[in-house]
């Protein structure tokens, strides 16, 4: 084609009809899902306040104040016998006088960080293993999946506990250990999707068009596998946060002076009768965040793979 033709082409382009990709469709559906949108908004708020934590409260998260032990916030309803914290203790104080508000926000930092990093670990492990299993021949794939089946039988949390005990509650190990809890399901999902995509006719068509194996993976397989992976990662985060809080409850997770929602909740549960705000606020924040992730995950699932609900 000569230069004249490319001028025509430029002109043609002006009249091109824009296409409506599947991603655009999915975005539209997601935005229309009220629960998911609310979830995203809540999550954004929580994340923002967590990041801005030092700016939002004058109290450092580990500053004790033995004059204000287990004091309710000023606006807490109830009779006068209770101690009032006063000042800017929006959520009151805990058993050693630390401000609960800032501790909840710092706890958010830790819990969210654990959630994201551990999910990332499970993502990398799961996708790597699952994609590999989906690509190698059927014999090796069967072997790899039997291994996964074996691991599935292990009561995983128990192993995590053992690990945390052995390596003395190492902070970084916790990320890896918790991430290792979820990778199995991710591996299964990725392998299943990879296998099913590989059998689709458009992969054959790509081969007939001379596309090499590496380009096929990059151009055709990855974009089509991304959807279920994204959905699953979003749904993994709340499970990870729960797992961390569980460990912290048992005393094997986050250690002092750092704090997480799990630690706060466990401390609050001890004082539930006398100082219910200590349990209430961290629980509320954690529940709201977990709800948000779940709504967003469900919304993503419906948006990316719609069946008439």
């Amino acid at each position, binding site marked *: *084609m000569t230069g004249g033709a490319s001028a025509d*082409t430029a002109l043609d382009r002006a009249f091109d*009809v*824009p296409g409506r990709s599947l991603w655009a469709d999915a975005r539209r559906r997601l935005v229309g899902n009220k629960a998911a949108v609310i979830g995203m908004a809540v999550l954004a708020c929580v994340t923002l306040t967590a990041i801005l934590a030092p700016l939002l409260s004058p109290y450092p998260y580990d500053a004790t104040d033995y004059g204000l032990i287990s004091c309710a916030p000023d606006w807490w309803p109830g009779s006068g016998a209770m101690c009032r914290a006063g000042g800017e203790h929006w959520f009151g104080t805990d058993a050693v006088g630390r401000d609960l508000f800032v501790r909840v926000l710092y706890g958010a930092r830790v819990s969210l960080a654990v959630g994201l990093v551990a999910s990332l670990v499970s993502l990398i492990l799961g996708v790597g293993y699952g994609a590999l299993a989906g690509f190698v021949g059927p014999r090796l794939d069967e072997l790899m999946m039997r291994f996964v089946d074996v691991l599935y039988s292990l009561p995983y949390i128990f192993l995590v506990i053992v690990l945390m005990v052995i390596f003395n509650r190492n902070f970084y190990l916790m990320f890896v250990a918790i991430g290792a809890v979820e990778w199995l399901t991710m591996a299964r999902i990725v392998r299943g999707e990879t296998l099913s995509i590989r059998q689709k006719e458009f992969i054959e068509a*790509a*081969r*007939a068009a001379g*596309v090499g194996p590496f380009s096929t993976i990059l151009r*055709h397989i990855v974009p089509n596998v991304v959807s279920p992976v994204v959905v699953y990662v979003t749904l993994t985060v709340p499970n990870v946060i729960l797992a961390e809080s569980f460990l912290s409850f048992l005393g094997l997770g986050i250690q002092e002076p750092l704090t997480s929602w799990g630690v706060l909740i466990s401390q609050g549960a001890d004082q539930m009768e006398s100082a219910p705000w200590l349990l209430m606020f961290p629980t509320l924040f954690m529940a709201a965040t977990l709800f948000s992730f779940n709504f967003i995950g469900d919304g993503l699932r419906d948006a990316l793979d719609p069946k*008439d609900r």
Partner: protein
Amino acid sequence: MAHTSERDRLSPAPLFQVRGLDVRFATPDGEIHAVRNAWLDVKESECLGIVGESGSGKSQLFLASIGLLAANGRAAGSVRIRGEEILGAPERVLNRLRGSKIGMVFQDPLTSLTPHMMIGTQLVEALRTHQHVSETEARRRSIELLELVRIPDSRRRMRQYPHELSGGMRQRAMIAMAVLCAPDILIADEPTTALDVTVQAQLFEILRDLKRELKTSIILISHDMSIIAGLADRVAIMRDGCVVETGPTDGIYYRPQHPYTKSLLQAVPRIDREPGARKPRAVSAPPILEVKDLEVGFPVSPDSYPFSRRKSLRAVDGVSFEVSEGETLGIVGESGCGKSTLARAVSQLLPARGGCIVWRGQDLARIGNNDIRKLRNEIQIVFQDPLASLDPRRTVGQSIAEPLFSLARGLSHSEIEGRVRETMARVGLEPAWINRYPHEFSGGQNQRVGIARAIIVRPRLLICDEAVSALDVSIQAQVIDLILSLQSELRIALIFISHDLSVVRRVADRVLVLYLGRVVESGDADAIYRDPRHPYTRALLDAVPVPDPDAERARPRALLNGDLPSALDTRASLAFLKSRMIDDSDAQQYRPRLLKVAPGHFVAEFDGMSEPLAGSQATCAVA
């Protein structure tokens, strides 16, 4: 929008009466108006054929009538059976009618039968819901009916699960289940679409017998006018939710009034008509593709012991043929005959286990990687399912350009884009649609995209693997026209694979008939269609219906009985040469030779064959 060819005299209280039926669906993408103001009558013991392409609303009309609409559907209007209004009736009333007064048979028998319940249980349940009979009596009647629909060994079948039966048997069981309570009406929604043509012919005989013996009215819904011609007394044509024409069968087929009906009849490929003016064939052009004794196999494990002996499924078992430049070879056969496997082996998407493929003088078994790329430039393939063969995440422009990116290195982006637009225009697509996605197009348009992708590299051989089988009749005709015009313009050799013999009649110069991986007959299209020799070819041709009611009614009984045998059983391929068969399903069997019966016309040996002429097809020169 009813356009009737003659005023239908309404006899007093027709059995089934639809007046002004309107069906709408609420979807996230807006409202879909599936059926618009439909009018229909069905009399006693009459067969009404409903013809329509996809989106015509033919199925939804009847699903709505008996209250089986999906949750997001709304129906308005009137539907009466024997004068009793049933549209919008409470579930109680509908349940009384469904199964006992109205029976329904659906398209896909595998998914339409409950997989975890035995056939017998499902049959008995259908009977005992409506009639007070004992379990024993119900079983006895079920067995009776299974025999009526010609399921052999019916007592044993009662205790089997749906997945243990073949497709044809499942559909027969569905029919038995639907007529168990002797309903007044049987609605059959595309009952044979998923079945092979020989099985289809048997099924139609069963329906004919049922109509005669049980006096049931039948409503036969199909997209295929040929199928309806033999059974229906009256026909209704539907389009876009409207009934555009109704009338007696002869009137519709021989004297159609509505332009749509006429165009449908025009577009239907017919096996009994000569293909019309064909281009003069190149006089003995040398073949550019020679396939000799090709064998392609798959290892399958009949059971899933981890290290069990793997049997080999011989999908292609010694096939030989040639194609010359500009020529069209049609390959026909039913499911399991290996035609798709053959296509993929020739285009090097599957490895061959034996035999040779010689392309323009070069043996493909020996080519290196670089030559594979050159090969893909020259041999291209169009797949069956237009939507599945396109990556849903890429625009059609990207999909069409893909071969150019890999095979024609050194073209600039604007050059590639120019070629894509040019090719799009050539196949009848607006170049302005280059950025759209497959899900925004119809099936026919997507198939044009597939064709564009195949021809953009100017191949010398185009393999169409059931390329038009998934398309509506009118679109099918257009796409066939497109393929033929491309072929003559670009001088492409064409291998056209299809199970639909009528379509192949239209396009092929020469024809190859496959059965269980082997060639049973090959020769000029005219010779094969006019003078088939092999019993399988004859049975196949006999089973194909034509849109001609008189011809269909005069059709003799089917020649083949039963379903296609399993390819794993080595005795199956000797079904027509039983004299040489070793009665062991694993033994290495005799391979029937291809013998010449006329110049260019070869037939596989069969029992009762008359003396062949001298000379047989050449075999592979093993080097």
